[in-house]
């Protein structure tokens, strides 16, 4: 697992989500990237059940259970500012058993799907973020395989992002600041996705252009 940067691409003016995705993928293909299949990252939200909350009136914590097609046999469970658990796919079944403690907020299931591109040692994934039936935004993930220390290769990643995102390059993700010399892991990628999904949930729905 190399250093990964997840960011959001704002929808272009006067265009729909799908058209912007097409623009991006065309730019990537002009750069020389090769298509290598599809990817999917999804996220389900669980509230701590009211019955387990203490009499002091603690606020319930939100738990996110995520899957990443890059790691098909794993399931990631994380709290907002807390630890991230990497478990087997049977964890989903376990969550069903824990219905009394964690309740699924079915309406907030969010996922992103799209194509994977490989350019030299970079793996680029451009996906459409959908919540229910509607497309809410565009996620762009870039992974640089050879490097495993985040602080080393941020400038390199930035240069690559600029080459195809143009002016919409993001700042350094928060996870990069926290870990100075530790090895980057898949949990950090999932934290970035969780933050992205939360941001998109809070945004207003993207106006659906072209359908009048």
């Amino acid at each position, binding site marked *: *697992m190399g250093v990964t940067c997840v960011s959001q691409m704002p929808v272009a003016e006067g265009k729909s989500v799908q058209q912007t995705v097409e623009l991006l993928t065309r730019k990537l293909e002009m750069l*020389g990237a090769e298509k290598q299949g599809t990817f999917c990252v999804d996220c389900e939200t669980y509230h701590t059940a009211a019955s387990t909350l203490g009499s002091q009136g603690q606020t319930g914590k939100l738990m996110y259970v995520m899957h990443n097609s890059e790691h098909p046999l794993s399931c990631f469970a994380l709290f907002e500012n807390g630890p991230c658990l990497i478990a087997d796919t049977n964890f989903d079944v376990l969550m069903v058993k824990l219905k009394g403690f964690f309740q699924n907020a079915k309406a907030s299931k969010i996922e992103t799907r799209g194509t994977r591109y490989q350019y030299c040692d970079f793996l680029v994934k451009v996906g459409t973020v959908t919540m229910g039936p509607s497309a809410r935004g565009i996620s762009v993930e870039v992974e640089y*395989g*050879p490097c*495993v*220390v985040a602080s080393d290769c941020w400038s*390199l990643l930035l240069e*690559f992002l600029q080459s195809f995102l143009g002016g919409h390059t993001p700042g350094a993700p928060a996870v990069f600041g926290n870990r100075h*010399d530790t090895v980057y892991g898949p949990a950090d990628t999932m934290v970035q996705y969780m933050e992205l999904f939360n941001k998109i949930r809070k945004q207003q729905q993207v106006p659906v252009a072209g359908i009048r």
Partner: protein
Amino acid sequence: MADALSIGVNLEAFSQAINAIQALRSSVSRVFDCLKDGMRNKETLEGREKAFIAHFQDNLHSVNRDLNELERLSNLVGKPSENHPLHNSGLLSLDPVQDKTPLYSQLLQAYKWSNKLQYHAGLASGLLNQQSLKRSANQMGVSAKRRPKAQPTTLVLPPQYVDDVISRIDRMFPEMSIQLSRPNGTSAMLLVTLGKVLKVIVVMRSLFIDRTIVKGYSENVYTEDGKLDIWSKSNYQVFQKVTDHATTALLHYQLPQMPDVVVRSFMTWLRSYIKLFQAPCQRCGKFLQDGLPPTWRDFRTLEAFHDTCRQ
């Protein structure tokens, strides 16, 4: 001569045994001559018969004596040792078709020639070093004191010496750690870990570097049975490029008389890769060129360049 003695053949007894064989042969031929000549001319028949029998018996006795002598000497000669001292190259000599594939004789000639060449080159370099063209007076600085005085041939060094040199280099740089192992015979295999950037497998032949393979920090360097994998390439293009550059470097740093200086310079050059992903190219100022970071490190100044940007 010393080799023959160590093998177990007594050369003195060997030459005496050959003489004994000759003596035995001559006494046996005397027996047959005597039989062929038959009886000598004497006055009486008994006299002739007696003379003949006596002569025949003498000859047989001498044959017996020579045979005993030969047996005694053959016991002294001893057997050559069981294990073939020439190992795999000696097996080549078993090939009977000499005129079509004269491999073994050519191999021996090439070996003798290269040994002579090395010897003459050593003499020549000793003579040339006396007439130094450099202006500065000090020759090699620190390593001159630590280098041992007698080094007849640098190709056959004791493994302990190699271990010492490598452990000294290991302590030189804090971010570089070197592990030495000898899974295949006497040639050392080093696993050099540079910070959290890359791992290098170096295959050596006494103190000379033979091959290198560069892989990423997160890549697996062992085969399924736990041995060091010295053949498979890295999965990433950047490390494949760095492997090519490392091969160029080990061809560039050459100094047959002082191989430990060579290993030290190679490790110093390798250490400059600690900033592989952080250093921009000194020529174009950018980080990426065709998707690759600056992978070339200049041999003298250790500056980073893209492969296409270097002069």
